[in-house]
């Protein structure tokens, strides 16, 4: 399906209506649906969440557009609801967390592979190895807290092994800021990529901050606290790659274009016909939003929307396993860190980052504790007789006594 961002009209705003019954549909099936259906649902919830977040920030700074923002935002609210409510009730917060990390791995890898700007491709690969490690840590938590195999969610698409260890991902805030793309010269795909990953990471952060306290186990609470802190770093990183010189309306227009791009990518890859129909519907809604905002942009700024938007969308995001790409990145870039906006070997880290990390880890790192010696095995590590023997060894009995 070819999309023309400048000409397709989509559904006009006044025809974008919902009922409560429509908003709450039968969720996808945790046992039967493909893992990438979950990945798409989680990402698109993040995309819509960003639409609301941006819309509110914009309204607070721009009185004249508050009415226009309120109209679009109310629709985005209900779009987000319909999407997020596709997550099933028998998928607990930790299982959904595994889904969030699979989003961060597979979508970031897809973006990193296609990103035309080499510096930004490096930014994505850098973040990718950190989120990749989170999947491993949360999988260890799921195994050791609940006795469950995270691969029931991951469905063998993404490796469950360590990445750049979370314990050394902690950096001073100034070492998480990157160089932004130039709004006048950047490829449209670069802008869509940046908005997509920023939105996904921001929602990941907010999700961990919400569900972390649901856990009783102190290690689980600590793990969520630690990884949520990294997600805050990632939001810092990814929002800093977006040109702050874009006008508010330019940003709004790009947000709507990013939503079109993402729903279209979902339409192109979704295997569940019921969920695909939702992606198609919202693709048409977002095209309506683009038209609405483009008119406002052109009237207000006296510029043609074509200055900001491409006529044709780039290739859709590829929802598939990026196993080899991730492994190759692991082999080559595991030891990277950052000094300011530049990527360097860990030995060259700033004193500020080392001091910051040492302070946080001075009473131990939760992600190291939860995954101490952890090797993922099909069906949980309890399928390994040696693991079972260790669990009841005299050492633990002495400690308990």
């Amino acid at each position, binding site marked *: 399906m070819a999309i023309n961002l400048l000409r397709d009209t989509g559904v006009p705003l006044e025809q974008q209506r919902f009922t409560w019954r429509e908003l709450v549909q039968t969720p996808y099936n945790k*046992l*039967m649906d493909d893992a990438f259906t979950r990945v798409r649902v989680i990402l698109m919830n993040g995309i819509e969440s960003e639409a609301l977040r941006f819309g509110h920030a914009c309204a607070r700074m721009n009185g004249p557009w508050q009415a226009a923002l309120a109209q679009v935002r109310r629709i985005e609210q209900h779009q987000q609801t319909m999407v997020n409510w596709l997550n099933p009730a*028998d998928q607990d917060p930790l299982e959904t967390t595994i889904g969030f990390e699979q989003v961060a791995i597979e979508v970031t890898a897809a973006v990193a592979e296609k990103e035309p700007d080499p510096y930004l491709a490096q930014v994505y690969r850098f973040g990718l190895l950190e989120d990749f490690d989170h999947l491993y840590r949360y999988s260890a938590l799921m195994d050791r807290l609940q006795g469950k195999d995270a691969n029931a*969610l991951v*469905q*063998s698409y993404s*490796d469950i092994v360590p990445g750049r260890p979370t314990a050394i991902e902690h950096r001073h805030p100034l070492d998480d800021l990157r160089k932004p793309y130039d709004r006048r010269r950047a490829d449209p795909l670069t802008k869509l990529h940046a908005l997509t990953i920023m939105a996904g990471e921001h929602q990941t952060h907010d999700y961990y901050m919400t569900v972390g306290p649901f856990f009783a186990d102190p290690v689980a609470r600590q793990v969520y606290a630690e990884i949520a802190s990294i997600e805050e770093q990632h939001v810092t990183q990814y929002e800093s790659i977006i040109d702050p010189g874009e006008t508010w309306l330019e940003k709004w227009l790009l947000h709507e274009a990013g939503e079109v791009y993402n729903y279209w990518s979902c339409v192109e890859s979704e295997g569940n016909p019921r969920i695909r129909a939702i992606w198609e519907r919202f693709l048409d809604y977002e095209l309506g939003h683009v038209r609405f905002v483009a008119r406002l942009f052109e009237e207000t700024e006296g510029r043609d929307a074509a200055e900001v938007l491409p006529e044709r969308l780039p290739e859709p995001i590829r929802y598939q396993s990026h196993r080899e790409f991730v492994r190759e990145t692991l082999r080559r870039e595991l030891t990277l860190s950052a000094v300011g906006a530049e990527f360097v070997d860990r030995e060259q880290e700033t004193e500020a980052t080392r001091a910051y990390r040492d302070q946080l880890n001075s009473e131990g790192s939760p992600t190291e504790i939860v995954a*101490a*010696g952890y090797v993922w095995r*099909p069906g949980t590590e309890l399928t390994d007789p040696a693991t079972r023997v260790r669990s009841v060894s005299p050492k633990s009995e002495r400690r308990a006594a």
Partner: protein
Amino acid sequence: MRQSAQQGTNRTGIVGAGQLGEEMVAATREFPPSSPGDARAIGEVRMAYAQAGEGLGETPPPGSLMDKAKAAVTATTGGQPTLLMDKLGERLAFEHAGARLYEALLSKHRAYGSFEGGPSGEDVLHILTEEYDHAQLLERAIKNLGGDPTALTPAANLAVTISAGLPQVLSDPRTNLLQSLEAILVAELADNECWTALAQLARQAGHDGLTQQCLEAIGHERDHLGKVRAWVAAGQGRSAGEGGGAEMPEAGEGPAYAAGEEKRGEGRDAGGRPAGGKSGKGRSTRRERQ
């Protein structure tokens, strides 16, 4: 809706993943753990927090001087007034939750109908009515002992946390009647165990009236458990008598009943259930004697 799962698509296992699954295992050989140790590291943190932490909470004190005096008298006779109040709160919370479970079960029954050997709508309504009655009984008992039935006691809070998954199962539109009954069975097992404990605590505290009311409730709960077991067994195409489920204790079992009012086994059938429909009509009319 069919009661048993159908064979078809299930993507959760590694066997069906083929080559993707083999690559998952291969990755663990190339990329080893980043730190040594094992799952016991988690236990050490749990111990450290436990040693520094607080409990789940406390029960509210008796409301009046008279109530405090009653509690003191109870304590001198070997009773545990605080524990009794905590456990009364627990049962009240559980009975309220249980009533909601049966309400949800009723919706399930109306939506999907029953199956051969499964419950009728009247069966479900009957148990639901008894759950309402039990809650009322407990509310009165707590008030009579000078407690506040609206207070969430630590044991009540614990019981609700323990059974948090049950309403999730019952209220999920995707679960069928048999799957819902499996959740109900867990609730009934706990209910039976805990009413028994409550009766023992009431007896220890010298509250004969309350003890008798608990024994009547236990009779109902034995009846519920027996029925639910039979329905689950029928749904699975087996007989409840074929060694299905843990043995049900007699209501009068245990040291607290050694010299009890109820004669062991009296009025009960071979399975320990109250005989002759006594349980079905046993709404409590007695009030706690103080």
